[in-house]
């Protein structure tokens, strides 16, 4: 029993971090109706940027205080997100879904190559921003890094919900998420809103990178987390900020259970496969996810 609860706790925490990555998909999708296939690469790029301003700068003899390094990373992420939107996706506004899909694939390969060009292919240790260790809660052990990440995900979800329903900028983004023509007619600058969404998505992905990688190995392979979070975003509903962490919880817990009980029987394949089984199931049964926007049809 204790073992089962331990598995559930770990699954839930990891799942909430998947939820964080899923939020970065959702923020971008809402405004631009684009599923950014390269979101995992964006996350890795954010992690490498953080490495550059921490370990990288220290290695070159210019150690920066952590708050300064984080501020610089944030600024670089803003510039990075804006550049992707401006250079790849803005020129494609109004193009077909297929064109945008292919542009996403191209961006994925391009970012991978760029990261290798700038930082090299070798893996390195990611800066340890969050404390490593485990909290003892009675008989259970809770990973502090994941716990902080999970709490951050929940707080961020609530903050984004308030942002999208109360603030002027958030309402603008919500209007753009609904319908571009209507947003135009209300004087919302759709381009600006999409740019803001890309910047937000990039920053959230980098925050997820911090939680996932703090103190562990940073390499290009980490980008696969993007494809792991995509089923989470689909299950939660591509338009729903609050659906993402909930879907993350579900997938995280199922993955942990599969990894404990099915993997020994399947040579470790079950847990890796599970998110994609969920993805196919969601697309077949409920394509708008748990909380996504169903097209309202009135008769």
């Amino acid at each position, binding site marked *: 029993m204790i073992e089962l609860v331990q598995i559930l706790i770990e699954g839930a925490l990891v799942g909430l971090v998947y939820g964080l990555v899923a939020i970065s998909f959702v923020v971008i999708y809402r405004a631009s109706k684009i599923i950014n296939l390269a979101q995992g690469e964006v996350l890795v790029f954010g992690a490498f940027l953080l490495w550059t301003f921490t370990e990288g700068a220290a290695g070159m003899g210019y150690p920066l205080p952590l708050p300064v390094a984080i501020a610089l990373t944030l600024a670089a992420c803003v510039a990075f997100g804006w550049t992707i939107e401006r250079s790849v996706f803005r020129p494609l506004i109004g193009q077909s879904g297929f064109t945008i899909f292919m542009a996403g694939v191209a961006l994925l390969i391009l970012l991978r190559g760029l990261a290798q060009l700038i930082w090299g292919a070798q893996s390195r240790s990611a800066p340890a921003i969050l404390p490593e260790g485990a909290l003892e809660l009675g008989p259970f052990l809770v990973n502090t890094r994941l716990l902080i990440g999970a709490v951050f995900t929940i707080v961020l979800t609530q903050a984004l919900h308030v942002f999208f329903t109360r603030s002027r900028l958030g309402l603008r983004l919500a209007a753009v998420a609904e319908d571009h023509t209507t947003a*135009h007619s209300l*004087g919302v600058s759709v381009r600006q809103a999409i740019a803001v969404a890309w910047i937000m998505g990039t920053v959230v992905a980098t925050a997820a990178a911090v939680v996932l990688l703090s103190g562990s190995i940073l390499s290009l392979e980490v980008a696969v987390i993007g494809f792991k979070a995509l089923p989470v975003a689909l299950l939660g509903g591509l338009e729903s900020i609050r659906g993402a962490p909930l879907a993350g919880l579900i997938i995280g817990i199922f993955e942990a259970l599969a990894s404990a009980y099915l993997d020994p029987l399947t040579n470790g394949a079950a847990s890796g496969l599970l998110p994609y089984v969920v993805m196919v199931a969601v697309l077949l049964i409920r394509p708008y996810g748990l909380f996504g926007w169903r097209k309202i049809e009135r008769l």
Partner: protein
Amino acid sequence: MLTLANVDAVYGGVIQVLRSANLEVRDGQMVALLGANGAGKTTTLKAISGLLHADHGSVTVGRIVLDGQDITHADPSDIVKAGVVQVLEGRKVLEHLTVHQNLMVGAHLRRDRAAVKSDLERVCDYFPALPELLNRTAGYLSGGEMQMVLIGRAIMARPRLLILDEPSMGLAPILTQQLFDTIARIKKEEGLTVLMVEQNARAAIERCDYGYIMERGRIVLHGSRQSLEGNQDVQEFYLGMGAGDERVSYRDIKHYRRRKRWLG
């Protein structure tokens, strides 16, 4: 206040929809723009509010001037900032937002929180059904309720010129009456100027100060309410009345219209 001078509008670079359209809206007027389907009414409105680009259209010739300022190729957001707000046809509420959020999106350019709040109360006063609907999801409202939200949302932007595209579309006659009465009240109390496209020609002509009639992209007739009401063509073609004040059947009107087109 607003002048369209010799405006041509083209979709997709080839399909000409407006041909040398001239139109003037004076301060405080209610102006009606009438005509058959496909006459170019909606295109005229979109040309004014800068929304043609979204439909791959553009104004190729002519000028649109608002209070001395050329807005022909201005950005839609700048046009809204200049005080021109269009209510699109077809009940374009933001479906998944609540009514309250819909109304607040209307005020997204305004920083004066206190004034926004009092405007919200005024909108609820114009449409007494709204306060109870504030927390409802807009996509599930009835057609009449949606139209209230749309007009309320436009008012939240504090426009000087309100552009309405077929506000009565799909509404029962009694609702249409109420809606037009409310629009007239809002216009008076807010000191608004209104430009309205309407299929319900009789209701529109009754309430406007000035009217324009379009056919195939041109303004073919314009005049004050009295002159339009007295005009025989308008009576025959748009109000469905024959010379002796008896109703002409729809087929006859269609026939007339076709003949008129053939004869140029």
